[in-house]
């Protein structure tokens, strides 16, 4: 896992193909590279590369089923990224609360 897990999540999700992969995996199924390659307009090799990037960011994990490797979503990092955005919103709530109080107590042109 990267020392900057939320940043790694954002970086991994910056690529539209990887977001598409996440979208497919979000149905909750374990899927193989071949299955993903059938659903996406890219090669098996490209799918494998994107899955590797997602795995590096901790967004997916793999398991062996005989000769096949299947991938599934790990929800933790995605929730962390969502929680971070919640904090961005909460910071603005707090700042605008101060702004409103400030505007009520001081009239700039007075």
């Amino acid at each position, binding site marked *: 896992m990267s020392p*900057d897990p939320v940043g790694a999540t954002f970086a991994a999700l910056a690529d539209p193909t990887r977001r598409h992969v996440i979208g497919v995996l979000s149905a909750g199924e374990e899927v193989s590279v071949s299955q993903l390659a059938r659903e996406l307009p890219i090669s098996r090799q490209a799918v494998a590369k994107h899955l590797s990037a997602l795995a590096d960011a901790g967004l997916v994990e793999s398991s062996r089923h005989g000769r096949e490797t299947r991938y599934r979503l790990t929800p933790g990092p995605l929730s962390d990224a969502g929680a*971070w955005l*919640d904090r*961005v919103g909460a910071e603005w709530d707090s700042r605008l609360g101060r702004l409103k109080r400030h505007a*009520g107590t001081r009239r700039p042109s007075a």
Partner: protein
Amino acid sequence: MSESVTREVVLPLERDEAWRVVTEPDHLREWLADDVEIDLVEGGLIELGWDGGGRRHGIVETVEEHERLVFRWRPDEPGPVHIETTVEIGLDDVAEGTRVTVVETGFEALAADVAPGCTAVSSWAWDVRLGACGDLPLMLAA
């Protein structure tokens, strides 16, 4: 799912007064950050610091007097998320005074094509919470 943060608040001020509280350092220090430097021209620098820790710096992108201020910012120090985002502060007239709308964008990584049915991303449905500050106590001047 939204990839921006939007918040707004209505101030009991005329537009020109509201413009001053969202652009002048003396006023910005009352609500945005503890330490504020801003060169209010397009391409000007903005530097912010908080007593509790953390500094941000960026560039002023758009200055439309009494209408709109846009700047980009990012943390000075690498943190949990070291990304640059864009903040747009817009003003418009409402019956009670001036509405200040803040929109922070740049979270492209969280684009809407992540499947909405995914429970893992359901917490991203934070979306737009308008008027979140509307019922905060207004401390009126005596």
